[in-house]
């Protein structure tokens, strides 16, 4: 770990700026890639695609206490695309929910770092996920609970395309619009690539913004690149700019981002990263991290 990274992580509760977030995300992405290679199991494409987004949430946005993961007033985060578990675990551990070295226990028999997020086993996980299309409903329940109990916490749900293929997501979208559920935010990691192929080949979602709007959600007008931390911070400003609910943000992202051979490739959704590909990929990721570190 570089001195700069160590310094950043020694002050985790500070709201990081765009450059710092970009550096953190690049560094976390390296960890994700290495762990997936080392363990020979897990999902790279969607983990990489959401690296900046989840980093920005945990190091700039979410109101949480790592020493009290179940704090009643905390903001909630649901990784509805639960297969990106290595992303969440890397970020939770670096944020301080559990020891960073435990990430090497990812998907090991007997380890608490289950294949998909498991809330009863992993500190900081607000909801177990894995079966796609569940997150928005659960988030809706959490956000309605906040309303009932007069709390101000926010509930964030992160989905990919897969979740939005599921009919239950649209049941939840309708329902949240009915109740105009306050402080419920849907974040869409829109990388346009699924497991079997591109979105167009498998299940076209476009025009996604119009679909969400017609379901009664407020959706961002400005395009945001979900792999660019400056854009993500701008999107957070947009969230705070009005009191219309529920809100969705569509982020344009790249599946398998920042590793040339995996970018935009459905084949890297959950493929094992072998030694040969690891050598190529980790070199590119280290270069990316160095570039971003220089800007901090």
């Amino acid at each position, binding site marked *: 770990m570089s001195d700069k990274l160590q310094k950043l992580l020694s002050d985790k509760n500070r709201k990081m700026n765009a450059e710092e977030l970009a550096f953190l995300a690049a560094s976390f992405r390296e960890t994700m890639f290495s762990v997936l290679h080392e363990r020979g199991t897990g999902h790279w494409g969607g983990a990489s695609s959401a690296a900046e987004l989840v980093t920005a949430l945990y190091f700039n946005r979410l109101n949480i206490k790592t020493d009290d993961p179940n704090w009643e007033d905390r903001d909630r985060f649901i990784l509805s695309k639960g297969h990106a578990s290595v992303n969440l675990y890397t970020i939770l551990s670096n944020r301080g929910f559990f020891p960073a070295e435990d990430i090497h226990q990812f998907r090991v028999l007997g380890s608490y770092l289950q294949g998909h997020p498991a809330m009863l086993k992993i500190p900081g996980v607000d909801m177990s996920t894995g079966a796609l299309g569940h997150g928005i409903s659960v988030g809706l329940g959490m956000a309605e609970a*906040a309303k*009932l109990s007069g709390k101000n916490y926010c509930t964030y749900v992160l989905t990919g395309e897969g979740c939005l293929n599921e009919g239950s997501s649209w049941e939840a979208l309708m329902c949240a619009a*009915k*109740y105009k559920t306050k402080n419920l935010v849907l974040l869409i990691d829109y990388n346009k690539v699924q497991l079997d192929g591109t979105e167009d080949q498998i299940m076209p979602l476009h025009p996604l913004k119009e679909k969400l709007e017609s379901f009664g959600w407020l959706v961002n007008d400005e395009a945001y690149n979900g792999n660019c931390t400056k854009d993500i911070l701008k999107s957070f400003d947009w969230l705070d700019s009005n009191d219309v609910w529920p809100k969705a943000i569509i982020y344009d992202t790249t599946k398998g981002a920042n590793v040339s051979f995996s970018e935009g490739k459905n084949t890297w959704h959950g493929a094992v990263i072998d030694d040969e590909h690891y050598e190529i990929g980790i070199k590119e990721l280290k270069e990316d991290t160095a570039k971003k570190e220089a800007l901090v």
Partner: protein
Amino acid sequence: MSIAMRDAFGKHLVKLGETHPELVVLDADVSSSTKSGLFGKAFPERFFNVGVAEGNLAGMAAGLATCGYHPVINAFAIFLALKSTDQIRNDICYNNLPVIIAGAYGGLSDSFDGASHQAIEDIAIMRALPNMEVIVPSDARQAELALEYALTRNNPVYIRLNRNAMPDIDTDRDSFFQAKAVKCVEGTDVTIAANGITASMACEAAEILKKDGINAEVFSVPFVKPLDTASLFESVAKTGALVTVEEHLLAGGFASAIAEEAFKAQVRCKVDNIAIEDIFGETGPYIPLLAKYGLSGENIANRVKALLTSKEK
């Protein structure tokens, strides 16, 4: 015969809502049928009608349950068992969340609506889920007790409700809260374990059998999980014969639950299982429909007699 189970359940929700601020109710556009609408009238802010969307119903309840609420989700039993199973398993049971899953119109009780609306596989599905408890009340009082019991639990509980009024069973609150089987008739010749609304039929069968000099011991067994095997096996040790009765498919239901435990405990006795065989239901008036599928006092009595006169294999 007291009031219909659904009416009792709906009214009891309102009563408990007054003393349980954590109680919230969610329904899937059937609240006038399931009677959860009564709660909605009394506590509109704690009632959610999510439309015909059972998956979202269960997922939303899970979210509420993580934040200190104790949700009751109310919809037709068959649609909860089939359309919300993924959410019930992965959001509620896997996380061991206190959600009460109230399956209305259980068994064949939505008789005129026919096979599409009749829940005859819900018990098999619900009892297969880790952390879930499964209660099938026999009458209005057991339905009320089941709700009270479920509210004391920190885990998911499935309560299968019946649409109609059924004869009352005298149920003791304390032993119900210990998930005990209710001994309705004391006897020595055969044990009849009756799940849900079949308890009153089993009592009727005992009356018929008495005339033939057969003393049946009858249990109303509302809890399929956890199952009170102690009471049942103690009775069987005395009688040497067991007849199970349920308003459910034979596959995976109440009889299966007993068989699994009986094998392990090496219980040896004569056995017959009265259940719906591998077949769908159909349209018709409830009581004759039940009888057509073998669920009547008379048929239970006949099957007991046949069992007791059969030779040991």
